[in-house]
């Protein structure tokens, strides 16, 4: 056990516990807030693995944008406050879901764990990483901006679709 192993175990435990609570809690808003803790823990894991830029982007994009979007969507769909059992399916369905989840996770672990070795962590090199993004990966990077634009227009189109339909139904 080295220091990095201990640091990763600490952040990993926080991440796993928060993720388990996020998918099992009976309060919708708590689920979104536990997701924040899980993603913060994951950013800590990225830091331990020497990926500083990825950890910061994870903070900015996930915790700053995605979770806020999820909470706004919960508000727009009038999520009930307080513990409710109806956010999850029945016990039989949940047991089946747990079996499928455990089976898939076990399969991934069974494939990955035999290849696990003790390795030197690559030191963070944000300068070299930035140079690579804007040389080797520049075309995928530009395509990504196009994708974000398409997602923005698509979200507008989807919401415009329903409002025009609703007004059409209202006049009928």
């Amino acid at each position, binding site marked *: 056990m080295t220091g*990095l192993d201990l640091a990763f175990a600490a952040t990993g435990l926080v991440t796993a516990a928060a*993720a388990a609570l996020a998918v099992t809690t009976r309060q919708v808003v708590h*689920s979104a807030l536990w*997701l924040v803790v899980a993603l913060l823990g994951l950013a800590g894991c990225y830091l331990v693995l020497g990926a500083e830029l990825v950890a910061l982007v994870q903070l900015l994009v996930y915790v700053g944008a995605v979770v806020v979007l999820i909470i706004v969507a919960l508000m727009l769909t009038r999520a009930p406050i307080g513990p409710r059992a109806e956010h999850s399916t029945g016990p039989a369905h949940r047991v089946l879901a747990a079996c499928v989840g455990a089976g898939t996770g076990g399969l991934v*672990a069974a494939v990955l764990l035999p*290849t696990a070795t003790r*390795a030197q962590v*690559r030191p963070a090199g944000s300068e070299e990483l930035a140079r690579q993004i804007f040389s080797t990966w520049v075309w995928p990077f530009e395509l990504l901006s196009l994708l974000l634009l398409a997602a923005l227009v698509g979200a507008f189109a989807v919401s415009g679709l329903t409002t025009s339909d609703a007004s059409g139904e209202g006049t009928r």
Partner: protein
Amino acid sequence: MIHTAGPYLLASLLVALGLYGILARRNAVLMLVGAELVLAGGGLLLVTAGAVGRDPSWSGQVLTLFVITIAAAEVVIALAVIVAAYRRRGHIDLAQDAG
């Protein structure tokens, strides 16, 4: 030095929990939380592969950045669809028939 069993275990655990969340939730927004956890597991695997390998193009970290951005775009579209479905149906319960 780090043993890669830890990251691998955490990634498979995140995939398992995310899949459970996708399958066991009835609220559509909460199902999306499970999808985020699966994507987080994939990102962790990419970062681990980048941290232990010596790839000159830094593909592990760069691809994780791309995955994070694509996940943001996916969440935008998914939430727009969910809000539109709520307006049309009055609920976002995945276990109920469309009214």
